[in-house]
């Protein structure tokens, strides 16, 4: 998909919780249709960044401009802004007292005051696409983790957002359900939806990203194409981080030493 004009500009964004600075002056520009995958060690501020973008966290400094509007302005109408920014959470957070369809229709009907038939048609379209239209009357507790997360994605999409934020959306899923959720996001990427994705799925990141944003200790350490980032990371910090995912090398290196010393995988000798 063609990359369009700038939709989101973040300038020198700062956020701290008490004494702890989590984002230490972060600058980033996102263009329409771009898919950014944000990776980095836990506690690096990935989730906080997403949460600042839709006002779930108050920022301490810097600027966020979304569609020409300053979100760092205290007068921001968040109800209106959040309709344009879809967010999907790690633990789905479907409303347990509502069916899948009711979860999806709540925003369009109550927030956007859309006509019932229109909202229903949109919901049917999306639910059919993620393969869950026949599960529309199920309550969240009757759905699998993967199904819940697909419904949660549709709930955000049904608002017709201009940008989607995914906050570790597969981190709570069993491995066999990860794929069905990632496939949905891959399709959305192909269709040109602007997305910011926080994930630990490196293969997925490689496949879906236009740009990889590597965050560490509250700053952007690398901003590169996936090919460059994964095959030729510029910084030591990125190399070290990527190493975490290299089990094969680790094992080989241990073996190559050829000594009979303690491998971490050997059970400890108690006596």
């Amino acid at each position, binding site marked *: 998909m063609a990359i369009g004009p700038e939709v989101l500009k973040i300038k020198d964004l700062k956020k701290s919780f008490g004494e702890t600075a989590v984002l230490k002056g972060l600058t980033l520009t996102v263009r329409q249709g771009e898919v950014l995958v944000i990776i980095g060690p836990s506690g690096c501020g990935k989730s906080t960044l997403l949460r600042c973008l839709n006002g779930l966290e108050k920022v301490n400094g810097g600027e966020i401009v979304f569609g020409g509007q300053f979100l760092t302005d205290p007068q921001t109408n968040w109800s209106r802004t959040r309709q344009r920014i879809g967010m999907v959470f790690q633990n789905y957070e479907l*409303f347990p007292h509502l069916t899948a369809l009711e979860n999806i229709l709540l925003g369009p009907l109550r927030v956007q005051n859309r006509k019932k038939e229109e909202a229903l048609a949109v919901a049917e379209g999306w639910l059919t696409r993620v393969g869950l239209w026949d599960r529309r009357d199920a309550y969240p507790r009757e759905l699998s983790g993967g199904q819940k997360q697909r419904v949660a994605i549709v709930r955000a999409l049904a*608002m017709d957002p201009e940008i989607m934020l995914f906050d570790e959306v597969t981190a709570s899923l069993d491995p066999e359900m990860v794929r069905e959720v990632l496939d949905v996001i891959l399709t959305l990427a192909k269709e040109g939806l602007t997305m910011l994705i926080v994930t630990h799925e490196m293969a997925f990141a490689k496949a879906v990203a236009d740009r990889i944003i590597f965050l560490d200790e509250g700053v952007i350490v690398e901003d590169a194409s996936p090919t460059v980032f994964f095959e030729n990371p510029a910084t030591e910090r990125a190399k070290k981080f990527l190493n975490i995912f290299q089990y094969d090398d680790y094992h080989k290196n241990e073996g190559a030493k050829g000594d009979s010393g303690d491998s971490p995988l050997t059970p400890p000798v108690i006596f």
Partner: protein
Amino acid sequence: MDLTYILDKSPVFVAAAKLTLVLAFWGVILSAALGLMCAVTRFYRWPLVSQLAGAYIELARNTPLMVQLFFLYFGLPRVGLVLSGQTCAIVGLTFLGGAYMAEAFRGGLAAVGKDQVEAGLSIGLGRFQLLRYVVAPQALAVSLPAISATVIFLMKETSVFSIVAIPDLMYVAKDLLKEGRGAETNFLLCAAYLTIILPVSLIFARLEKRLRFAGFGS
């Protein structure tokens, strides 16, 4: 035990039970309304009103209903405010019940996670919509056992109304005791209270079961 005596006196108890039920009904409804208001002010942490609600709750929960009724019935006339016995009964029961209801609702509201609130906010729900469509329905399900306990408690608390000269069940029972009919009176009292309270208890038990299966606790 004298069955004819019991049959003979039962119309008196039916009338007293009706009165007790009417007073309890209004007390419970108004308590729920007052309690909900208090719980909501505390949920939104509205300054001042939420502290006021907190102070009221402590005052109402930590003084006996009989003392509250004394104040309304015998205390207020001294400052020129004379309320009828029935008004005192309903106001007193509401004053007591509002605090218990507030605590029942608060427990439910507190049980709805911060993540649910954030999910609601993220689809653009406003503060009131969030409460109405996301938080309140879930809170109600959690609160229901506490609400049910409060309703039953309030219905039983009506038994002190006789001190403000209301011809409720205890009042007519005291009259009968003067005739030296302890066993019959006791039987009639038990039967009357059971008749009005047990159905309420059963309805709530049913409701709790229904809500438990309605898709909560996913």
